[in-house]
């Protein structure tokens, strides 16, 4: 199996992600819906970027694009030196698994698997051995503070705990980028701030962190905020 370079680069000035004139449109019947227009974004390794904007401004589409879940209609997207536009479905799957850690608003854990097994899922698709991935999953569970709940099912966990599992899962393959889509959106403020603390700690350890949020508080923590409006970048920089 093809293995991607898994060691994250900690040099903060090196761009890990470059988007040039990126456009995305959907065909809705006879109407062409322009969701993203001429997006130019560069994110360096180790950065903490918040993406903000009102509903329908294209935040989620941009996030999907960054996460290699979606193909752009035109433009260029380079992720750690590879042109994503040229990759086929299998390669995109591999990139997602190896380089990107997703944290979703609604946690998106697999209900029939317990904590450790959920954390193991991305490692399984990268071809790690059962023993190795189990060991690593346990370590990650301990790291997010769930060491004593590793055999619990998602339905037996609170929202905050579920989101911790999701973060542990996102870290499973040591990704280059952690993509968090409203990570605190479904949580009460207390567990929300706990989750945010974990994410910020990860950034401090050198991870690249991209958070989509409505929460201005998160945006103030971030080094940079990208504001989208109607598919265009309205603001891109430190506030």
């Amino acid at each position, binding site marked *: *199996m093809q293995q991607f370079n898994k060691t994250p680069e900690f040099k903060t000035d090196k761009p890990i992600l470059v988007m040039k004139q990126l456009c995305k449109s959907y065909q809705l019947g006879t109407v062409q819906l322009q969701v993203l227009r001429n997006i130019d974004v560069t994110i360096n390794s180790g950065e903490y970027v918040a993406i903000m904007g009102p509903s329908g401004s294209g935040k989620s589409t941009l996030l*999907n694009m960054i*996460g290699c*879940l*979606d193909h752009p209609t035109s433009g260029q997207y380079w992720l750690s030196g590879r042109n994503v536009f040229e990759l086929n*479905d*299998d390669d995109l*799957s*591999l990139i*997602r*698994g*190896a380089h990107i850690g*997703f944290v*979703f608003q609604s946690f*998106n*854990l*697999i*209900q*029939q*698997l317990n904590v450790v097994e959920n954390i193991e*899922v*991305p490692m*399984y*698709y*990268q*071809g790690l*051995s*059962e023993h190795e991935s189990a060991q690593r999953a346990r370590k990650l569970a301990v790291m997010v503070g769930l060491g004593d709940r590793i055999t619990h099912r998602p339905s037996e966990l609170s929202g905050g705990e579920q989101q911790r599992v999701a973060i542990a*899962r996102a870290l499973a*393959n040591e990704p280059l980028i952690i993509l968090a889509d409203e990570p605190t959106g479904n949580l009460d403020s207390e567990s929300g701030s706990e989750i945010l603390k974990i994410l910020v700690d990860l950034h401090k350890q050198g991870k690249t962190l991209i958070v989509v949020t409505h929460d201005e508080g998160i945006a103030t923590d971030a080094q940079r905020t990208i504001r989208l409006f109607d598919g265009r970048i309205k603001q891109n920089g430190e506030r």
Partner: protein
Amino acid sequence: MFTFRLKRTVKLGIKSLWMHRLRSTLTTSGIIFGVSSVIAMLAIGEGASQHAQEQIARLGSCNIIIKTVEPPEEEQAGGRERVMHEYGLTYADAERFHNSIPNVEVVVPNRLLAQRAWYRNRKVAAEVIGTVPWFPDVSTVRLIQGRFLSSIDMHYKQSVCVLDENVVSELFAFDDALYQDIKIATDYYRVVGIVTQQAIVSDLQTFDNQAPAAPGQGGANVGNIYIPLTTIKDRFGEISIEFSGSSGAKIEKVELHEIIVKVGSIEEVLPTRDILETLLDRFHKQSDYQVVVPLELLRQAERTKMIFSIVLGSIAAISLLVGGIGIMNIMLATVSERTREIGIRRALGAKKRDIIVQFLSETLILTLAGGILGIILGSSIPYFVTYFGHMPTVITTSSLILAFGISAIVGITFGLYPAYRAANMDPIESLRHE
């Protein structure tokens, strides 16, 4: 690499199926019943035909059996009441077969009489067969003890007899049968040999109506007693008198009840049969004989078996098909129910192929588990059929392999489409799916 992934895939599949135990069980039951009906039906069909074939084979595939039958009433005597009714095969017929058809190797003329035999105070109803020393050549009987009849016995019309196992076990509880004297009708005969059992044509009646019952072969006879043909003619004569109520006595004269002809090879059986019939037709004015060809019966039995198997097999195959459609239905429902899980897995790095493997393996686990349980159930059904229904059944290995193979094919065929659908879902939309 592949094997450990396979193990984990199977583990994961079982886990997912275990989440919906009732659904999985109900889905599998379609396959279970399909597979077990395939096995049970093939076993019953195979048993019936094998039983018939064994019986036929014991008659000898190179043999042609000509039997005396009583001619129909209207053909008899042209209206005039005759005192004695004379019909059937004669010594002359046997002579002609032997002399005029070159490829006939052995001719065995037999007289058959239903008689009672006694030893001390034990009694048995048996078929007394007057035959010739070379009878074993056309028969599958094997000598267990002593000797068969000899030409000296024939020449001197000796009072000797050869018993088959059944007669021995009925007559002799404790004594050794050999060289004892048994009484048949009014005379005593010395037992000179013991043989295994002989198949008789009337056994075949259960299988095929074409095979006629030999005269005198009642169902009550437990076995055969062989005595020299000359002796039987001497002691019992050729005339039988049967008193039948008010209509008076029925007097019959029959020389031979059957002639068994053996030819050199199986290919010669059918042409020789035609020659024999031509020959018989010329010398017999009434249709008082019937030609039975075991080989023909065997072929017919094989044809019947084939049709039987096709009919039963297709019924069972349809039930498997129905089971397969049921599985496909459930898998499609499962796929749409687990859309979100598919989206999550795709986002976490699963390729389309991984999703196909996951869902296909779940279907395969269902069908193969159904196949195994079906084999267990299907193998036990014939056992009960034999036990309670007294029908012979034979489970062949090929039917087990066939049933299991079909269930695997059903799993792949009906699992492929749902798996393919799962793999081709758009990851973004699946993630949004509630």
